């Protein structure tokens, strides 16, 4: 994936970036986070050294936008719902995990707006902030403990039963 920050910096180097360039940066920022989750999941459950195994690709592709988004929406709460509390055995996720989850939901929504909504307006400064939010989301995700990250990655992969 191209680095969204570099993409935007290049676009604005000589003149204000076009609406299309801003939309592409917003979309790319989201995908950087999405692929970080996929990679974390496959490395956790298959192993980084097993990239040639079919399981690596299967698990990588097992992560869907909709499932991750749904989990992140549910995690972005001061107090988790009853089902999540039972599944994760906690009443709330860590602040870092909530920061990641909150950013993921917003980045996904912005990507939807950027890719499919012609009415959506993206300013240069707002787009720079969106790219920075994607970087913050990845940093927050990487700061979570291995145990919490594994639990959430499992939840994103398997719907489970209520």
């Amino acid at each position, binding site marked *: 994936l191209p680095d969204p920050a570099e993409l935007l910096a290049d676009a604005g180097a000589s003149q204000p970036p076009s609406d299309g360039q801003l939309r592409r940066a917003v979309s790319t920022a989201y995908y950087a986070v999405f692929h970080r989750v996929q990679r974390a999941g496959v490395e956790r459950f298959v192993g980084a050294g097993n990239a040639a195994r079919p399981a690596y690709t299967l698990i990588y592709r097992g992560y869907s936008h*909709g499932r991750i*988004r*749904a989990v992140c*929406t549910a995690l*972005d*709460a*001061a107090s988790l719902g009853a089902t999540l509390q039972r599944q994760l055995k906690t009443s709330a996720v860590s602040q870092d995990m*909530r*920061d990641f989850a*909150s*950013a993921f*939901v*917003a980045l996904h*929504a*912005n990507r*939807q*707006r950027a890719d499919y*909504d012609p*009415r*959506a*307006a993206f*300013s240069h*400064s*707002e787009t*720079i*902030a969106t*790219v*920075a*939010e994607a*970087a*913050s*989301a990845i940093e927050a995700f990487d700061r979570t403990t291995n145990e919490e990250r594994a639990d959430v990655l499992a939840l994103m992969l398997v719907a489970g039963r209520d």
Partner: protein
Amino acid sequence: MANLPKTELKKIARAAAGRLLGAAKVKGVDVIGSDALDYQPAYLFSFLYDGTRDPQHEALLRIRLRQKLRDELVARGDDGYPLITILGPLDWEKRQVA
């Protein structure tokens, strides 16, 4: 789940933004319904911010402001997910209004 009136949403948003961004620097607040989330209702809150823009700092502020709004809305029975834009004076007039 309730759908809070726009005046109440703006009041909640102004209070939350004032605490996180500084009341004197938040010059305007607007909110519209958004269909950016196809699985649940959402709001797009716009804030007119007249202060220094630092992307890294602003990224965290956006996250925390969104969480604060989400908690305030849930506490009032409104499940609309808050999306946020923080705009400078030049971009405020170009914001999405419907």
